């Protein structure tokens, strides 16, 4: 996953208070991570997981990712979503974005600044966000250096594995 330089992608919008039961429903909890991706947003947006393409961008409103600690961010990463942008991201969900190395950025005003289908450009150098369709510019809240390191390593597991603390995937 690219967490350096600039990325651009097509925008999908989801609104406020999107919860993790919608991203990773309990009934598929025990499937493989790749199988789980087919059920993302099945309850609120059936068919979306088949339509979305690698590099697309999700835009949420306030409190994106509220709810359980399940590895919902991993499903978005495995769908190859380029980045999550939201006015605010739920603290636990944000942790899981860090944990799984899935790029996520809080950008105040982002929900109002984009329509579905617009193209977004995100710079991971200065966390600037631009709506290439309308020309609007926004400032994201910088990812702290300490966490950026984990994001860039691809998440916690690669770090712990490199230190010999956990075994490689079975």
């Amino acid at each position, binding site marked *: 996953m690219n967490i350096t330089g600039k990325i651009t992608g097509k925008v999908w919008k989801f609104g406020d*208070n999107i*919860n993790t*039961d*919608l991203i990773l*429903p*309990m*009934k598929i*909890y*025990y*499937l*493989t*991570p790749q199988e*789980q991706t087919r059920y993302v947003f*099945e*309850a*609120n947006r059936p068919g979306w997981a088949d339509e979305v393409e690698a590099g697309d961008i999700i835009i949420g409103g*306030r*409190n994106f990712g*509220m*709810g*359980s*600690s*399940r*590895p919902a*961010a991993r499903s978005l990463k495995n769908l190859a979503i380029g980045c999550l942008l939201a006015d*605010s991201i*739920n*603290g*636990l969900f944000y*942790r*899981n974005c860090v*944990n*799984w190395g899935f790029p996520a950025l809080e950008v105040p005003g982002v929900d109002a600044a984009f329509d579905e289908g617009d193209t977004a450009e995100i710079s991971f150098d200065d966390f600037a966000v631009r709506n290439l369709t309308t020309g609007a510019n926004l400032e994201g809240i910088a990812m*702290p250096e*300490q*966490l950026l390191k984990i994001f860039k390593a691809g*998440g*916690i*597991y690669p770090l*712990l*594995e490199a230190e*010999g*603390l*956990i*075994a*490689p*995937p*079975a």
Partner: protein
Amino acid sequence: MGMTIIEKILARASGVAKVSPGDLVSVRVDTVVMFDNNFIPNIWREILKLDDPKKLVVVFDHRVPASHIPSAISHQNGRRFVEKFGIERFHDIGPKQGICHVLVADHAYALPGTVLVCSDSHTCSAGAFNCAARGVGAPDIMYAATKGETWYRVGETIRYQLEGALSPAVSMKDVFLHIADTYGEHANTNVEYGGPALGGLSINARRTLATMSAELSAEFATFEADEILLDYIRARNPAPFEAQAPDANAEYADVRTIRLDEIEPLVALPDTVLNNSRPVAEVAGERIDQAFIGSCANGTLDDLTVAAKVVAGRQVSPKVRLIITPGSQTIYREAVAKGIIGTLIEAGAVITNPTCGACSGGHLGVLGPNETCITASTRNFKGRMGDPSARIFMASPATVAASALKGEIADPSEFLR
């Protein structure tokens, strides 16, 4: 400026004199709670070294006894891990079984002033014990277990000052619904509970509010420590600790007074608890198929007691399945000894073994298409308890029990004068 309770605990655990909102802190972790979901093959990675096996608690709760082969495999992975590192605080299926947050309470694993991590979102439950406890992700647990530390972004704190006393038909679940309805989400903000009402609130009542604070999307939810709490802890855990009180000049994002005597029984409408509750009278008459009392928030002895009081000598509507899940085997045994379970069964309730069960929609009480449920558990998200077309109302155990009797959502007041 001074610090709030959570700022003081985090400052201490990170070895600095002061932390402030906006800081990113690395903290020493005192307790790591792992549960069956940590051991599911699609998440689990074999741990090669542990920071300190004595810091660990291992619990199986989400699907117990195993409901299908994959959950049985996660339990096997967990047992192998416990054996390999000689983990003593292990709650397998059997006499010590229970929901992880309930066991943390039963055994006072969460000590005041300390830091506890668990990768379940309702870990804030242990905030009732003046403990810095919040849900993290499964990889965070691996990190904390192997390195003994974790990180937090320090958020601002909102203080809830609790005053007055609850009316007989009102519980802390209603107080929670009132807060969620009035103030909505608290994302990236801590909540702190205290005030003169505390002395009249049992540990179980406090735990309901602390646990439900996850549904406010709060970061940490921390209660002030008082003598009731300190006695509770000392009776169960001999380890030393130092409770933390807020500084007199602590800085809060807001201070809100909640008068408990002004709260009435409330019901949250389906899909969310945020800005979505109504007084029970406005929803009364809504037909239900299932009524559930349980979970880490409402499977306490207090909850079973009030449910029994409502249904004693009466019968659950033949059209309703009333499912009740004690939070732990200890609570279950006490409820049996007090005759509470007998009363519930006589009224037609089905008692399940302690587990997450219906709360997580995993097993034991999954909802079918277009069914209606009223639940005293933690979440009413769309699809949470089964089919996405099912409607889930949320209320207190008393309201759920009264509704089960009538076959429709009903006010518990007439049963609890």
